[in-house]
């Protein structure tokens, strides 16, 4: 968006909008941290890869919830669709990982397009319920189609080929970590680009005041559908990453718990900021890992306690809290 197109708006706001898409130095921080983690915690790389995958999945929810205002509890439908796509390909003789991701993105994206075309006509609670229903239906279908998916036993016999023909997905998760990191980085660039594009701005407009967007002639339904399908494709890629790096797909990839906990992680980090997942997901998953090791019987309780503390003391997530603290000290965030 160019400054001169906005005419009489306050010059400061125009400047801020025009600069929003430029990469700022602090935006490199999560990536530097991720690279440092590779060298600092070599025995935690399998967990690290799963954190990166969960960040991608949570990012896809942030795009539709945080930017377009579409509330969903069924994003796991697309995660699972992607996971089973890549898994079934690898179990039936095509274990090339990158094309597996592409196939998963296509299947999940089409599924998002088809289901979105129906359910995005509703709003609020009905929409929430419908997203949930789609995921439940898919999970039950996968359960019933045991001959294809393995049902509750999970998909057995995946054989994923080495990445780029060279790098095996070994037990220590080095390849998996780097692979997930690169994929996440590329998709984050795309997501960032979308958010700061006129299309992304119009999504925020739809979230804030849909009637006004209709009034200025914005194709509201189509825009919501496009971002919904795009987020579905992102989720599908996340699912495929999990399938390829763990060489396993189970029914839980389609489960409500995955959508629910991603939502929680997003809320911990901060919704609608693009960086919420980068804070919330590592915090939640590392805490879960630590608690579950320290106390395998009652770890759920400690996680619950952590959530209550975050919700009570850090409304708007940790990023929201940071922003408020910075403001209080008189600085602009």
């Amino acid at each position, binding site marked *: 968006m160019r400054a001169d197109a906005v005419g009489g708006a306050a010059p400061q706001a125009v400047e801020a909008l025009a600069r929003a898409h430029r990469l700022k130095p602090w935006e490199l921080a999560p990536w530097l941290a991720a690279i440092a983690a590779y060298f600092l915690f070599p025995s935690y790389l399998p967990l690290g890869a799963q954190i990166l995958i969960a960040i991608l999945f949570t990012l896809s929810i942030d795009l539709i919830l945080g930017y377009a205002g579409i509330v969903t509890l069924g994003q796991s439908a697309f995660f699972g669709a992607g996971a089973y796509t890549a898994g079934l390909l690898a179990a039936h003789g095509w274990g090339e990982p990158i094309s597996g991701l592409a196939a998963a993105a296509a299947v999940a994206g089409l599924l998002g397009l088809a289901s979105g075309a129906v359910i995005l006509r509703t709003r609020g609670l009905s929409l929430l319920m419908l997203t949930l229903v789609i995921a439940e239906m898919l999970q039950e279908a996968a359960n019933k189609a045991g001959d294809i998916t393995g049902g509750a036993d*999970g998909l057995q016999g995946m054989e994923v080929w080495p990445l780029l023909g060279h790098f095996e997905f070994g037990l220590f998760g080095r390849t998996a970590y780097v692979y997930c990191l690169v994929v996440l980085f590329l998709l984050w660039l795309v997501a960032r680009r979308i958010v700061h594009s006129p299309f992304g701005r119009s999504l925020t407009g739809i979230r804030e005041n849909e009637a006004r967007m209709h009034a200025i002639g914005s194709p509201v339904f189509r825009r919501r559908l496009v971002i919904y399908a795009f987020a579905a494709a992102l989720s599908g890629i996340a699912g495929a990453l999990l399938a390829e790096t763990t060489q396993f797909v*189970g029914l*839980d990839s389609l489960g409500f718990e995955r959508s629910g906990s991603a939502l929680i992680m997003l809320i911990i980090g901060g919704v609608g900021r693009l960086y919420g997942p980068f804070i919330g997901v590592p915090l939640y998953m590392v805490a879960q890992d630590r608690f579950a090791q320290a106390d395998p*019987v009652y770890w759920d309780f400690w996680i619950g306690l952590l959530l209550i503390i975050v919700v009570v003391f850090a409304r708007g997530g940790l990023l929201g809290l940071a922003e408020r603290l910075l403001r209080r000290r008189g600085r602009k965030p």
Partner: protein
Amino acid sequence: MTSRFGVVTLAAAIAAALAAASASAETIKVGVILTYSGPAASLGDQIDKGMSLYIKEHGHDLPQGVSLELIRRDDTGLNPATAKRLAQELITRDHVNFLAGLIWSPNALAIAPLSAEAKVPTISSNAAAVNLTRLSPYVARVSFTLWQECLPFGKWAATKGGFKKVYIAVSDFAPGHEAADAFSKGFKDAGGEIVDSVAIPVKDPDFVPYLQRVKDAKPDAVFVFVPSGKQATALMKAYSDLNMKAAGIKIIGSQDMVPDEELPNMGDEPLGVITVGTYSNAATRPANKAYVAAWKREYGDKTPPGFMSVGGWDAMAAIFSAIKATGGHPDPDKVMAALAGWKNPDSPRGEIMIDPETRDIVQHIYIRRVEKVGGHLANIEFETLPMTKDPWKELNPPKN
């Protein structure tokens, strides 16, 4: 004895102990993957207690200077992806020498390839999926397979049991299907008729509609497999709510349906129920009496030991014997060699052996009836099929 002499001997003893310790000081790590939280936590509790009890009773049997560390992880239930990640972490982060536990077959099936890749001897304390030991040369099993129990049980039901028409209702996952296939084969080969069969969701099932369908078909009996623990109690309640006993439909199945530790929660409904199993805490074998007494000393009367706990106990017995056989340095291949043909004549369930060919357990299979003994329900063994091998592996030889 002068005090100086005392000091010298003490110093010498310490030096000797230190020397011995440094020569063979080794902490052997066992990664234990069980369900410690959620609706199936009682199963993890049973196995964990069985393992801990063995270590308490036999800890002094370990070679000098060798100590054992259990690293416990919660797989939260039937959750293969989580279980696989936990196993991967136990192997790469904690460098465990053994993996043990494993309640759910799908979880175990997901872990088995890791045990092969990393060469970590893995002992299943419960997971019964029949092909598990085929997936990795480093997996051995001390629990049972459903084929081992249900094929002879099917034969028994059609002959001595006197059942003509049986309906099959099993949980919709690998062990359920295996129980159904095995029982069905044994029963039909001996002349029985399977009326129909139905698969019940394995997670959070409501048994009433399924058992209603069974009731409407009016068979002599319904053959059931459900994951043990609380699901067994829910199933028995549904059976009772539908008045199936009064309708003349008996309920038969594997021991998972009437686990010893759940019997006190089931009322009198299970009286007369016939099941096939590997262990009952009411058995009068001396090894079992000692086991039950040790259990009560340690954990009190509240939850009696069931077959799952014996899976935990025997897994530790196998690990101890492998540690001893390898002199405290459990090289994976030597461990597996030690486990091949390993025998334990003193298991609470009677004699057991690990088949050197298949690494699966060979054991007595018991046919039992629920009876009231001293005011409590108990599974009373009334027929023994001695040293039974897993028949599936003979029916399905490995393809090479």
